[in-house]
Structure formats: structure tokens, C-alpha cells
């Protein structure tokens, strides 16, 4: 056979093999390759919805306290990006934002994509881009900025690295702030640049989150924190929480706790308890502040008046337990009226109110317990979520007919022990005591911003979901289900209570602390701390509270102020809390320019 013919057959054979192979790939395997290609070529890009901003009020105008800024991730291809120039560029413009050790990144073989810096601001990102480094991408993203720094951090919360709101308003209103991400599906080139090739490209625009306007007043909040800080300097206490609300609407105008944390660097916090909102998430024993509620119940039931008397012995025996009064001045011994008992915060007085409730001035009975429970739990809604737009804890109120030592438990409850309620619950109930008898749902949200206008927020969480996600306590069972603006006390009861609370502070007027022309009332509370299941009678640790109101003389109170001060292992009496209240109520008068009735 001529050898050229051998070449001919070899050629034909090879071309034949190729033709068959092509048929196999292009015809038989075609669909599989198309599927694989679509996987590789289709770019599915989430169009990130902008997170809503958070505003506070400032003299009637909303001002942003949590804002967004566009930041950038710096992404490199270690196989191409020149290492030394990258290092010098990053050091020059974005030193604080470097998230990777370049030595380690470049040591990884085959690595083609790595994020080397995060949260780089626009100005630095443009400078990095101008350096023209090969294979450096700048990916746009968002981060939160806090123009007010640490202010109100436990109320505002923060946004974590995944863009999820945590704690505070960021956590509880996450669903409103978040918005809905859009989607872009398109054929793209190898650098993920969209191509016009292909006809099934999809673009769903993002729905940005709504901006929330809080009822909290920025200036007042700031001033309040300054006063708290000053108070802490002169106190044993290390912590303090303050709530200021309008008792006639339930609107919160200031809510904060110190120490704060820096939400921009929330990760630096050592103990996650720093994130917790002390006003709504921590049930505690507000102690003698609760005497207001026991008194209100007995007066409202017509069982007593401020002038009703009883015999004060400085102590009361209940269930074999001796309950002492804190004040044992000799002039208080004997027949005294209820007004005096409240003025001196006598435990025997509030226990007497419970006895009156049961129609037996000599002892506590079932009827008294059940009535007190009805007022505490059903009317004042203590031990319930209040429905405020924040993460809440429920706390608890003991059952009147179950468990051992019910009488002593209920005796303790009249002066605010043996129960667990939050500051917001206490302040809400106290508001009803002084506002004419109406229980309102407290609110911290004015609305959402739509085209510059504040529109009411109507997307309350449905079902058993409360605001945000509960952490420790049961939340949501009956949130927002309680009475809203419902009358729970008579006008007369409320007026009587107001007069007694104002009477409590008559010496403050004499001392020039409470100004003339204003009605300022209040009640202190000093709680022992439960240690190892029993009250610590050494009084080594005390939590001091003060609850009061301020308004023009002869009018309904304008603001209710609650102060709580404490410190671990510190004995903080109600005196420190009262001092802080004194300065805050005067500050409120000045801040809101409340006119006196002289």
C-alpha cells in the first residue's frame, strides 16, 4: 500500500473521531451543557433594600439618630493583584478597615477572590479605585452611622454583620426597617458585568425599608443622659435607668440607661447584658412605689380615704412573719391616717390598705387578696406586656389563692416585693393613677416617615409574635390586648392620689427644690435584693427607685418620670434616685417651657 494512502486513512480516521466527538458533545450532551452554562453565566444578584433610618423628635421635627452610609468591601484576586502596591494603597487610605493579613491571603494557593477590607467609606474607596490596581473590586454595601454616638444605645439597638437588627428598636422593628430585597437575574460576563445577550433577564426592584420616627425627644434624651451621668458620679450606684412619658397618651419622650455602649462597635461589649433595655426587658421589685397601687385600689373600692386611720405599731405580723416599718419614729406610733402612712412610706400602712380591701381592718383575707390581684394584674396590667414597640419581659404577679404564705406574699406585694414587674409596666400603671384613671398603651414610636410626613405605624405584629424576639421572658401572650385608654380608676380616686403624692413632696417645695406654680408629686422605693432565694436582711445591696410626675399646679400631670439606680453589691437608697428625679423634673419644666399656674 502506498504510504501516502496510510496518511490519508490516518487523516480520515482522526477527522472521523473528531466529528463523532463533536456530535456527541453538541447534539447528545447539548442540554446538559446548556444547563451547566446557564449555571455559570446567570448572575443572580440581590439588590439590597436600603434599611430605614431611625429618627427622634426634636422640638416637633424628626431628626435622624441612626443613619446609613454607603461603604465598600475591597475584594482582590491574589493571583493578579500586585501584593506590595495593594498593601501600600490599603495602608495609605483604609488602614482601619483592613480585615485580612495579606501575607496569609497570598500564601493560599489557587485563591482568586478575597475580601481584604470592609466598611471602607466612599472617600477612601474612590482613592483606592483611582490607584488602578489590577483585579481589585469595590463592592457596595451599607453600614449604620450614629451621629449621636452612644446616646440611647440600649433603646436603639444595632445592626449585626448580617444586616439583622438586634436589640432595641433595630431588633423589635426589624421587619419595618428592613424592607424587601430585589433581584437581578441576567447573563453576565466573567467579571459579573451584565450582558444584553439572552432574553430571560429579570429585574425586581428592591423595596426600601421604612424610616421609623421615635416619640423620644433627642434633646431631652441627651439632657437626661447628662443628668444621669452627673448623678452616677455622686452615687454608690454604677447603673441608672430613666423613663419619661406623657401619662395622658402613653407616649415615651425619654428612655435610657447608663452605661451605654457604642453601637458602631457593638462587638467590643464584654457582656451581652449591656445590650438589654433596662426599662422594658428587666422585671424587678420597685418596692414602695407599689404602695400607690394598693392605696389606689382601696380608695377606688371605697374602702378608705386618706383620712381613714389605723393603729401603727411599727410592725405587722403576717403568717407568723414580722414585717417592720422602715421608719420607727415615736411620733408615728398609735392612731395615724393613711396620708401620713404614705408620706412616711410605712409598710404597715399599705398592709392596712390590703386589710381594708378585704373588709376586715384586723387581718388579710381571701377577698382582699383577690381584689388586690384584680387591680394589680387586670386593671393596672402589671405582669403583662404593655404593648410598647420594644422587646419586653412580662414579669409575674403571684396568684391570690395558690402557694404557701399567701397572706405574707400579698402583704409584701403592697409595698412592691414578691413580684416582678418592669419599669415600663410600673410607669404605665402609675400614669393611670395620676392621669384621671386611664390606662394607656405606652408607645415609643411616633410613626414612619413617608415623603417627609410622619404616618402612623399600623403594621403591628400579628399572631403571638410580639415586638422583636423575646429573650428570657414569655412575650406576646397578651401584648397589646390590654385596655387602651381604658378607665380603671375613678376621676376622684386619681385626684385623691395626686393630692397625696404632691403632699409627699411638700417639704421639697419648702426646700425650694420644687418650684411654685407646679404640681410635682412622687413616691420613693427602696428594694432589698433577693439573694439565694431570700431577702438579704443585711441591706448590703439595695435598688433605689423614684416615681413621680410634674405639671402646672391644678392641672393634670404633663410628664411621669421613673428613675432606677443600682450597682452590683452596692447599697443604693432611694435618696440618690430621688435626687435625680428632682433634677429631671426641673429640667423637664425648663426643656418644655411648662408654664406655672401661680
Amino acid at each position, binding site marked *: 500500500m*502506498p*504510504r*501516502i*494512502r*496510510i*496518511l*490519508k486513512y490516518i*487523516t*480520515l480516521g*482522526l*477527522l472521523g*473521531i*473528531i*466529528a463523532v*466527538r*463533536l*456530535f456527541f*458533545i*453538541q*447534539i447528545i*450532551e*447539548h442540554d*446538559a*451543557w*446548556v444547563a*451547566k*452554562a446557564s449555571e*455559570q*453565566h446567570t448572575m443572580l444578584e440581590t439588590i439590597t433594600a436600603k434599611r430605614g433610618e431611625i429618627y427622634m423628635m426634636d422640638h416637633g421635627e424628626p431628626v435622624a439618630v441612626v443613619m446609613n452610609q454607603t461603604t465598600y468591601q475591597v475584594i482582590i484576586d491574589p493571583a*493578579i493583584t500586585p501584593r506590595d502596591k495593594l498593601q501600600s494603597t490599603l495602608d495609605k487610605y483604609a488602614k482601619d478597615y483592613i480585615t485580612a493579613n495579606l501575607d496569609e491571603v497570598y500564601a493560599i494557593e*489557587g485563591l482568586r477572590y478575597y475580601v481584604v477590607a470592609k466598611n471602607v467609606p466612599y472617600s477612601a474607596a474612590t482613592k483606592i479605585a483611582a490607584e*488602578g*490596581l*489590577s*483585579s481589585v473590586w469595590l463592592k457596595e454595601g451599607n453600614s449604620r452611622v450614629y451621629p449621636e454616638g452612644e446616646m440611647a444605645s440600649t433603646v436603639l439597638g444595632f445592626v449585626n454583620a448580617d444586616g439583622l437588627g438586634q436589640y432595641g428598636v433595630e431588633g423589635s422593628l426589624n421587619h419595618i426597617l428592613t424592607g424587601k430585597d430585589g433581584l437581578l437575574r441576567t*447573563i453576565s*460576563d*466573567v*467579571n459579573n*458585568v451584565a*450582558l444584553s*445577550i*439572552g432574553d430571560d433577564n429579570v429585574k425586581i426592584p428592591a423595596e426600601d425599608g421604612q424610616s421609623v420616627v421615635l416619640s423620644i425627644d433627642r434633646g431631652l434624651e441627651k439632657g437626661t443622659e447628662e443628668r444621669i451621668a452627673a448623678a452616677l458620679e455622686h452615687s454608690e450606684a454604677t447603673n441608672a435607668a430613666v423613663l419619661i412619658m406623657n401619662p395622658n397618651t402613653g407616649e415615651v419622650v425619654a428612655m435610657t440607661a447608663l452605661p451605654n455602649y457604642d453601637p458602631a462597635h457593638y462587638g467590643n461589649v464584654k457582656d451581652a447584658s449591656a445590650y438589654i433595655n433596662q426599662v422594658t426587658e428587666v422585671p424587678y421589685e420597685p418596692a414602695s412605689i407599689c404602695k400607690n397601687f394598693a392605696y389606689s385600689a382601696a380608695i377606688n373600692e371605697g374602702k378608705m380615704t386618706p383620712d381613714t386611720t389605723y393603729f401603727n405599731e411599727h410592725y405587722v405580723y403576717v403568717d407568723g412573719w414580722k414585717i417592720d416599718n422602715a421608719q420607727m419614729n415615736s411620733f408615728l406610733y398609735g392612731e395615724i391616717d393613711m396620708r401620713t402612712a404614705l408620706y412616711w412610706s410605712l409598710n404597715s400602712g399599705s398592709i392596712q390598705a390590703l386589710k381594708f380591701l378585704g373588709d376586715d381592718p384586723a387581718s388579710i383575707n381571701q377577698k382582699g387578696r383577690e381584689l388586690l390581684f384584680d387591680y394589680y394584674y387586670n386593671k393596672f396590667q402589671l405582669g403583662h406586656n404593655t404593648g410598647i414597640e420594644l422587646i419586653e419581659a412580662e414579669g409575674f404577679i403571684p396568684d391570690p389563692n395558690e402557694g404557701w404564705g399567701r397572706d405574707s406574699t400579698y402583704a409584701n406585694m403592697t409595698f412592691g416585693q414578691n413580684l416582678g414587674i418592669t419599669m415600663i409596666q410600673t410607669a404605665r400603671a402609675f400614669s393611670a393613677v395620676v392621669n384621671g384613671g386611664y390606662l394607656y398603651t405606652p408607645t415609643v414610636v411616633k410613626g414612619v416617615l413617608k415623603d417627609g410626613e410622619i404616618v402612623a405605624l399600623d403594621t403591628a405584629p400579628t399572631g403571638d409574635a410580639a415586638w422583636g424576639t423575646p429573650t428570657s421572658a414569655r412575650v406576646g401572650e397578651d401584648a397589646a390586648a390590654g385596655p387602651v385608654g381604658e378607665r380603671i380608676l375613678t376621676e376622684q380616686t386619681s385626684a385623691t392620689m395626686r393630692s397625696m403624692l404632691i403632699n409627699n413632696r411638700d417639704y421639697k417645695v419648702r426646700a425650694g427644690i420644687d418650684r411654685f406654680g407646679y404640681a410635682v408629686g412622687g413616691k420613693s422605693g427602696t428594694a432589698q435584693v433577693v439573694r439565694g432565694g431570700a431577702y438579704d436582711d443585711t441591706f448590703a445591696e439595695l435598688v433605689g427607685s423614684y416615681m413621680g410626675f410634674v405639671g402646672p399646679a391644678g392641672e393634670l400631670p404633663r410628664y411621669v418620670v421613673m428613675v432606677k439606680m443600682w450597682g452590683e453589691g452596692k447599697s443604693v437608697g432611694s435618696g440618690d434616685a430621688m435626687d435625680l428625679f428632682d433634677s429631671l423634673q426641673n429640667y423637664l419644666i425648663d426643656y418644655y417651657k411648662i408654664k406655672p399656674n401661680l
Partner: protein
Amino acid sequence: MRKHKSDLIILFTTLGLMALGLIVIYAIGPMRANVLNSTYGSNYGANDFFIGQLRSVAISTVAFFLAFKVIPYRLLRRFAKPIMIFALALSALLWVLAAVGSSLAKCELGECRWYNLGPISFQPAEFLKLALVIYLADFLARKKEEGTIGRLREFWLPFGLVCGASLALVVVAQGDLGTGVTLVAIIFAMLLVSGISLWQFLIVFFAVIIIAVGAVRMSSHRMQRVDAWVATLTGGESSDSTYHIENAMLAIGTGGLTGVGIGNSVQATGYLPESINDSVFAIMGETFGFVGLFLILAVFGAMLMRLLRVAGHTSPPDERFAVVGVFAWVLAGVVVNIMAMTSLVPVTGITLPLLSYGGTSMLFIAYALGLTLQISCYTSREEVKNEDIGSRGRLRGAHYASRRRSA
């Protein structure tokens, strides 16, 4: 033998393929420019690659007609030895320049294969292919005439020296396995038809195969390519090494029966490496589909068959050997390139003749094809008989001695 018309099929397939290459580069050149600009920060204009290819085609067409009509093969043959020495010297000089780090040597990915001549670059290995074809055609014809083919000292020694030097310069010094494969194909095809005894041919053939396998095993990056090839064949895990071939097959596979049409290639937008050079066949597969590729394959097939026919009908051994050399050159390019793109063999980095972007390779293969056209003007009507029986050389060619060319 009287001069007659040249082989029209070789003429038109050559020009047709160059035109097709131009169209494809026109369609995907802008994408290539875009990818390079955004990835490496280069500054290519949208039409730079098309203009480059246009220039290559123009120069190659001129070379094609120079070889076809102007420069007589006889003249070339007379200078076969100096041409060969010059070609080897060019490659050797490049090696030296690269070793001393001269800017005249242009290197990419650690391999120095080009002379840097300002705006253009020149690949001496392409010239070496042409030189080897011309030299071996002359050498084999002389040895055949002398009747010394197959003898150790007169034949194998000089033959081995020239071929060995060529391969060493290309494969070892320039690290260019693709050109090496082409050289081997040229050498063995020409050797096969030279009239060497079959057993000698087979011994040398297998010896070279063993050396080649050994060399591949010794080189880690070549073993990597083999491993990648095995991985794509057996459905193994994807890696950086398999990326190229997977994306070539992806391009071909998505083409289906009729392709996505010109300008609609997605793989050319950066997914497929070397989309305008070594991988252009895969882009054509995506663009024109099975029908298009089959036609391209048929065009190459027709050209190769015609080259063999010209060889078969050419009496002067040197001319016949030269045509076979050119045939092997084209065949190696087509088969190795396409088989690599379809994962039938490991990737070697070889351009597709006349279609791939690239100046030097197109220039010399066009010249070589022009040369075969010149030779095709003197074919006889019947196939030359017994052309490959070496012993006939001992008759000192008297049988054909009267044949002289009029040109």
C-alpha cells in the same frame, strides 16, 4: 511535466478559512478587549484585535501569493541548508537573549518564545517549521537519490542532529510543546514517505514516543495537564487545571446543532481562556453549532486530502516530501487543537491553522500552503507508483531524470 492550473481547492480553502477567522475575530475581539481591560487594566480598543487579525491576514495573503507565484521552490531548495541553519540560529539566539534577560526576548507565563520587535512580535519556532519542511524535503530527496536512506552515518546521524536540535530548542528552550508536536508530525510524515524501511520507521517512532512520555512525566506542569485531561474525561473534580477544557467543552456543547449565532457567544466574554487564540474553535462551536463545525472540519479535510493528492501526483521526491511536510503541519494543528478542545487529548497550547489570532503562525503556514500550490501546478495525471520504495533510489532516479521544469 508541463505547468498546468494550480489546485483550486487548496487555494480557496486557504483563503476561505482566513476570511472565516477574520469574521469570528471581528465578533469576539471587542469582548476579548473588554475582558483584558477590566481584568488586567490594559487599554485595548474594541476593534484592536480585528485590526490586528486584518493585518495578519493581509501579510499572510501576500506571503501566500509570494510562495505560490513569485519565489520558485527550486531557489528555496538551493538554500535549504542555510535556511535551516538560520532558523536554528534564530531560536538559539532567542534562548540566549532570554537567558541574559534582554528586552528583545518577549516572555509570557515564564516561557520566552517571541522576539520583541517594537510594535510586532515574531515567533522563530514558526519559521523553524517552514525551514524544517524545506530542509528535510531536500535532505530526504538527496539521501534517496544517493540511496543512503536508513544508513547510520550518512542518514540517521545528520537527520537526528537536525531534528533533535530543532525539538530541543522548541520544546526545552522555549517550552513550546504544541510546536514540538507539530515538528514531530512533520518529521514522521516526511520520514514515512521518504522510502525508509518500515521496521526502521517503527523503531524510531516508538523510541520517540517513549522519550516523549518520559519527558511529560518529568515535567510537573505537563503532568498537571494530563491529570486535568483525565479528570475531565472521567468526570473528576473541577480545578484550575480543568477550567480551560471544561469551558471549551461548555462553549462547544451550548452551540447545539446550529449555534447561538455571531456576536451571541457568552463564553467569549471572558469565561473561556485564549478565546481568540487556541480556543477559537470552541467559540466557533458555540457560534455556529455542530453544522458549522462539521463544515469547518470538512473544509480542513478537503484541504488535507488535496494536499495528499498533490503529494501523490508529484514525481520529484523533494517536492513530494515538502507537500507531505506541509500536510503534516496542517494536520497536526487541526487535530491536536480540536482534540484538545473536545478533551480527546490533553491541552498542549497549539493554534488552529489559519483561524486563530496570531501573526507569525498564520504567516508561515500561509507561505507553506502557497508553496504547495506552486508544486500543484506540476502534478501528473496519474498517481506516482512505487514512489516510496527506497531501493529505487539506487537507480539514481534515471527513470525521472528527463523531467525538467519549464518555469
